[in-house]
């Protein structure tokens, strides 16, 4: 199977974010919060401070490494929650049909009608800022597409010979769902989760930018951008590097998701001439 350049670029960028996040405590030259020194504030990038320093004199490079931890946590945990909710609802709705299907469809449509960022904002406003409520907010608001895909995959898999054969062989509903249907639709679900990670990272940055997400002084790429807003003319590096980090990680997740889709779904595979 040939995987395109985009897939490898996506894998590379994602791997970079994962390395940065996991290894941050060991490879970061400074402490992201405590090494504030007003004497060395707003220094441009040099050999000591690779990405310069911010208004409090903290190393931007260090803060970006630790910011990766938060982005990764948010991306992965929220997508796990999304996938579990989406798959459970979508699969049971598609399999059982009837009033349950109508109910789940209605709920999905309602969720799709509300912009997920607005919904997340509302949830954050209720739960208050901080990482746990961020995870809940992003985990509860983005399952509708996964649910749709799980439902339609279930509908088509339900008519497959082996699912019907399983029914005649006396399998129970749950056993059929977990042994016959779920494994056969893992491909698209995985793709959705990967693409969703990109948008979760972006949503986290947006919420933190608005001051509802990760609270200062802890480094999140979004809140770093907020801090950088007043300095953008004096010290553009304080804004450029977190922005670049968000851009590259979201790009990475999206390219990885697209590449996975191309390789997992033979109908979507694009052939280069």
């Amino acid at each position, binding site marked *: 199977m040939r995987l395109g350049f985009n897939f490898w670029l996506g894998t590379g960028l994602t791997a970079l974010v994962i390395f940065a996040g996991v290894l941050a405590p060991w490879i970061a030259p400074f402490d992201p919060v405590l090494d504030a020194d007003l004497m060395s504030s707003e220094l441009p990038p040099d050999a000591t401070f690779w990405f310069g320093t911010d208004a409090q004199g903290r190393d931007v490079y260090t803060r970006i490494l630790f910011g990766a931890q938060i982005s990764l946590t948010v991306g992965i945990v929220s997508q796990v929650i999304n996938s579990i909710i989406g798959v459970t609802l979508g699969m049971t709705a598609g399999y059982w049909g009837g009033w349950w299907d109508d109910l789940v469809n209605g709920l999905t449509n309602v969720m799709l009608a509300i912009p997920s960022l607005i919904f997340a904002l509302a949830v954050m406003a209720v739960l208050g800022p901080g990482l746990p409520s961020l995870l809940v907010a992003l985990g509860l608001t983005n399952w509708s597409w996964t649910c749709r895909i799980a439902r339609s995959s279930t509908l088509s898999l339900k008519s497959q*010979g*082996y699912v019907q054969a399983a029914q005649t*062989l006396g399998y129970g509903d749950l056993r059929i769902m977990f*042994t016959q249907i779920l*494994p056969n639709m893992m491909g698209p679900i995985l793709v959705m989760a990967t693409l969703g990670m990109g948008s979760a990272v972006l949503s986290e940055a947006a919420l933190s930018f608005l001051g509802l997400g990760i609270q200062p002084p802890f480094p999140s790429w979004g809140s770093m951008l907020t801090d950088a807003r007043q300095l953008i003319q004096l010290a553009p590096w304080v804004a450029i590097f977190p922005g670049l980090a968000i851009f590259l990680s979201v790009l990475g997740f999206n390219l990885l998701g697209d590449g996975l889709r191309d390789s997992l779904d033979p109908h979507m595979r694009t052939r280069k001439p």
Partner: protein
Amino acid sequence: MTAPLLDIRSLHLGVALGRSAHHPLLKGVSFQIMPGEAYGLVGESGSGKSVTSLAVMGLLKRPLAVSSGEILFKGQNLLTLPKREMRRLRGNRIAMIFQEPMTALNPLSTVGRQIAEMFVLHQDKSWNEAQKLAIDALASVRVPNPDRRAKNYPHQMSGGLRQRVMIAMALACNPDLLIADEPTTALDVTVQAEVLRLIKELCAERGTAVLFISHDLGVIASICQRVGVMYAGCLVEENETRALFDTPRHDYTKGLLGALPRLGSRSQHGRQRLVDIDSIIADRSKLTETRFIAPRGIEGSQP
């Protein structure tokens, strides 16, 4: 005389559309299968063969629904059986094999695992035990190298092998009744003969009754003791296989037999024309209760 294993009594079944509209598909089908007997059900596409078997399995999907009649299995009415009980019967006491061996197995797990699951599901065996039983089951359907084949995925097998795996799964729990819904249609003729012989021998060995659904009269003749002919949702004729082929009584049966080319028949019977049955399925609404064959007619017979 022993009690029949499966006793279908005037089964009416149809498409229920809303509360009042009802479009009948089976109009009072009745037949019995004795323990260990092989019963053939023939008829053209849409005559209600498969729907009858689905009714027996209790797997009719809306809007299909049984409107009246009884399906007695060992004296127990399957139509009134609770869902849970019915599920326990399926695969365990009544098993089924399908026309399409290419799609009837889960592509993502090994065939050994899929057979083993039957033992775990219905006989409460441990997975280890079940794996061994699965290999025995593969050996019993004469798959060469069963222990190696058990680790194969369905895509690594040919159609004939997959159908054998399906048979192994269906017969894993020694069911009393095997429903075979055109099990050889998708296979080529040599493989077809092997699979037929396998079904015949295994069922005879274990005393499993077979409900064999097919539109291939040759296949039916080689495997079944009795045959029922279905047309437009009715069982129009039923007889011992030999008798049915020698002296068909119903017009439709005559048409069906006449449509079968016979090898070397010219020297025996002189020049023959195959009888043509008008190939459009008759409009059900125009059929009367008694003369289902009337609107179509067969060449040579007066309607």
